[in-house]
């Protein structure tokens, strides 16, 4: 046994990549097959559009039908938020579904593949669907609501990459946290995503938030990602202090907040995994 044991290796980058790739296929199979293709397409389009339209209608009623720059701020923020929600919900659902519904998490955990690339891959299908929602919402904004696209790909592309990494970091933190919770925990991330929605400048400029909340907003990478992406899509013009910052400053703050958040999230996930192993939660069915 000793000779054979010496030949056994740990997890390699190739293993992680293979798991990630395979988990994407699994995620898509689950995401796209819960209903027939027509219903899936209708749901994919109707959900984000209706969410954005509710905001637009509310805004129009409050302002008496006066469209303006703020409507553009609102629509772009609501569109981009689909990505944040897609990542958070995708990661958390992966944990809960695999453990509680499919009861396969224990079998994934005992493979040499790490749960981390598996979860990322598993949730990516949801991210893909959310990108469709972003495009659709923006298209409706441009065609019917006066949104003017002024694409700056030099800003949009790096902002999107950094933003996605940051949001994935937040999502992996939340997935680890949900590993400690009961099946009903699927609603907790939704609540947190909702809170982040309010404080990240998606629909309310940070300046109008209560003073005690504003430091949280400035510390969130989502705030800087939304602002950088807005500038990459529709140019400058965000209301409040954030609109006065240079592109370089916004990108630097996005980078800084991402660099802080992601390692912390990974460390937290490792801690949550160990805690789950300690408490025996990796194969627990809590939905009773």
């Amino acid at each position: 046994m000793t000779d054979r044991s010496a030949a056994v290796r740990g997890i390699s980058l190739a293993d992680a990549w293979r798991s990630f790739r395979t988990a994407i296929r699994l995620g898509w199979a689950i995401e796209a097959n819960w209903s027939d293709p027509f219903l899936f397409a209708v749901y994919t389009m109707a959900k984000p559009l209706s969410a954005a339209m509710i905001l637009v209608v509310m805004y129009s009623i409050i302002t008496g039908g006066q469209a303006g720059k703020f409507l553009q701020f609102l629509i772009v923020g609501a569109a981009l938020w689909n990505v944040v929600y897609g990542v958070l919900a995708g990661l958390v659902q992966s944990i809960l579904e695999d453990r509680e519904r499919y009861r396969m998490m224990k079998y994934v955990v005992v493979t040499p593949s790490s749960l981390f690339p598996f979860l990322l891959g598993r949730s990516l299908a949801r991210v893909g669907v959310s990108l469709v929602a972003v495009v659709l919402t923006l298209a409706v904004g441009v065609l019917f609501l006066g949104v003017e696209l002024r694409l700056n790909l030099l800003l949009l592309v790096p902002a999107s990459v950094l933003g996605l990494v940051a949001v994935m970091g937040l999502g992996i933190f939340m997935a680890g946290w949900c590993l400690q919770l009961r099946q009903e925990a699927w609603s907790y991330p939704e609540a947190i995503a909702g809170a982040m929605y309010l404080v990240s400048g998606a629909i309310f400029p940070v300046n109008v938030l209560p003073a005690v909340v504003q430091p949280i907003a400035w510390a969130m990478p989502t705030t800087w990602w939304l602002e950088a992406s807005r500038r990459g899509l529709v140019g400058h013009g965000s209301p409040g202090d954030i609109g006065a910052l240079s592109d370089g400053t916004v990108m630097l703050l996005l980078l800084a907040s991402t660099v802080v958040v992601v390692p912390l999230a990974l460390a937290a996930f490792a801690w949550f995994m160990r805690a789950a192993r300690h408490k025996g939660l990796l194969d627990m069915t809590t939905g009773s």
Partner: protein
Amino acid sequence: MPDDLSIHARALTRVYKAKPEPVTALGGVDLDVEPGEYFGLLGPNGAGKTTLIKILTTLLLPTSGTARVAGFDVVTETAKIRRVINMVAGGEQSGYGLLTVREQLWMFSQFYGLPQRDGWRKVDGLIEVTGLQEQRDQKVRTLSTGQRQKLNFARGLLNDPWVLFLDEPTLGLDVAAARDLREHTLAWKAGAPGRTLLLTTHYMVEAEQLCDRIAIVDRGRILALGTPGQLRRRVQAESIFRIELDHLPENGGLDAIAGLPGVVSAVRTDDESSEGAGADRVALKVALADDSALTSVVTAVAERGSHLVGLAKSEPSLEDVFVELVGRGFGASDEDGGSRS
């Protein structure tokens, strides 16, 4: 050397936090399993069998003590352990229902790091071995319980594990499906030397059929450990034979047999099978210190003019062993024992 063993555990303890007081699921287990050995953990629900498997498969951390699988520590060397083990649990409806049998197996082949082409080849081979050819393109959600468990078993062999953990693998299966699974398990063992199995079960027949050695477990402790034969001898030191004769031996009869060297006792025990078979037919229960004394008994019977009509060895069952050790049967698992598996 612990590193040469497939499984090595010392003082392994697991305590769950619970109210009103902590629950001890494992209370200091010592266990050594040799490479190539099929080892069974036999015990009622709540004995701690599953907790032990969870620790050895790296799903759960022990509260104290040490355990090594294939020479690797279960706490610090999980990645290495996971490369050489696999696990199959029974009595559950696990599986990605939206995937086909083939897709699900292929997916796990990737998690085990098999190159794509090798993965498909391995998957198709295991589908054939487990008799799932007709279901290969069927979605997992449409499979019967037995078919799902076959799929689960096939998944358990994907990485050709050194140590395979089977946790109540035939729980909830019908007789035919359970038999199939046991046959697959034995065939896997025969496939290559050194393959080790740790099986938990509360089915005596399963443990006897599959295992070289068995540990009887209750309330988180190993009460007895040995081959099935050794365990039986714990409750019955003598060999008991039921001897059926056409008539009672002459010239001293029973007393003469009882006085033979190696014979502990010999009593007449006419029962239903001997009654009515013939007016003079008799059945004797003969206890021997050793099986070798049987020859002299048979010779003595013949010398005294009787003819042997039937001979059977009476063996205690593993359940008898369990009852002797624990003081209750398998059906009466002690919920108050508080063990959690």
